[in-house]
């Protein structure tokens, strides 16, 4: 409903360019940009990209926004991962941990599809 209203108002303004406009979303690890059709709530955007709220911050322009905030096509949004680190130190040595050796855990790859069931999180 809100989507069709927004589309109509843009058509009325006569701007064909605005009609095709989509919000630009900046993602990290690896760094990339995607375009997403708005309007969309923050929590829905994260869910569509299969990203966890607990592991990300959403920044619109230069302001932090909450999960219920509505994002629009004209917005520039950064989804910033909050997880860092990964050292296997002496005090927490994990048997079998290989530190810098790259593994093939699906959880560490960029997520772009919804095909992975959310509950099936183990590799």
């Amino acid at each position, binding site marked *: 409903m809100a989507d069709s209203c927004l589309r109509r108002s843009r058509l009325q303004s006569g701007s064909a360019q605005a009609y095709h406009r989509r919000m630009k979303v900046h993602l990290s690890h690896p760094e990339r940009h995607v375009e997403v059709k708005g309007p969309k709530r923050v929590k829905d955007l994260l869910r569509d990209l299969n990203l966890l709220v607990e592991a990300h911050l959403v920044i619109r322009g230069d302001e932090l926004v*909450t*999960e219920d905030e509505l994002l629009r096509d004209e917005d520039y949004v950064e989804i910033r991962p909050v*997880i860092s680190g*990964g*050292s296997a130190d002496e005090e927490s040595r994990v048997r079998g*941990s*290989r*530190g*810098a050796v790259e593994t093939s855990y699906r959880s560490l790859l960029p997520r772009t599809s919804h095909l992975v069931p959310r509950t099936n*999180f183990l590799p």
Partner: protein
Amino acid sequence: MNCNKCKTKAVIGLPRHNAAFCKTCFNTFVHEQVARAIKGERMFGRDHRILVAVSGGKDSLALWDILLKLGYKADALYVDLGIPGYSAKSREKVQRFADTVARTHEATLLIHKVEEEEGAGIRELANLIHRPTCSTCGTIKRYQFNRTAVEQHYDVMATGHNLDDEASRLLGNVLHWQEDYLDKQGPSLPASIEGFAKKVKPLYRLSEREVAAYSVLNRIDYIVDECPMAKGSKMLLYKEVLNRLETESPGTKQAFYCGFLEKQASALRQGSGQAQPAPTSMAEKDRATLHPCATCGQPTTAEICSYCKMMAKAKAGSTR
């Protein structure tokens, strides 16, 4: 979503506290959590000199910022590991924070360059001694931070470990029943013997997301890129698993780690009147097992400490 305290527009929701805060109230919340950690774990007082271990990441820079704003005397040490394309960037972030924020509080930044003292960058050293880069990095950082804190007469060394770091480490140790390492999972480790600096983790009550939000809201310019050496580490997997659990059941990470700390504390309090002997405290264990390294004098369980052994091996490898 509105702020629970002042009812203005919120900038962050905290499901585990069933709360949401605006920027001002969130900053107050963060400062209160850190102050509670410092007081509750008797980490340090107003007159103590603190050495913060900084890396250029959100946690360590946020910690330095919070301690300075709370009025503590906190200097920082940055260890330049010589990782191509990463160390220069992270050092620049630390230097900028030191110049713009720390200087106004009369705090100093100390820098240790691995390539200058150890003779090679971290990647080259790890190759020479045939050990994973993260483990080599851990040994060098622990050694250099402790050495600097002791030699420069700091009362305590503070690291930016947050709730997620501690909970994921605990999960790893419990999954593999690494009981010996559980002793060192506390947020405040005493200076058990001469040569060991006291180590504290004032951010242990804050989640990784909360620390990142504090950094963003307070315009702390930190390095967002992950360390290229940490790719694929088990700790990242454990963090991801815990975040899935946290999403389904907010408060899981806090219940897991803080529950462990409570059980550890009650096990130390009890025991004397029990059938089983009382668990020995970490300080007592350290005093019984540690003595000065024959080469450098820093505490070790062996004749020569792991850092000196590592350096000897690297030197032998490079002359071959």
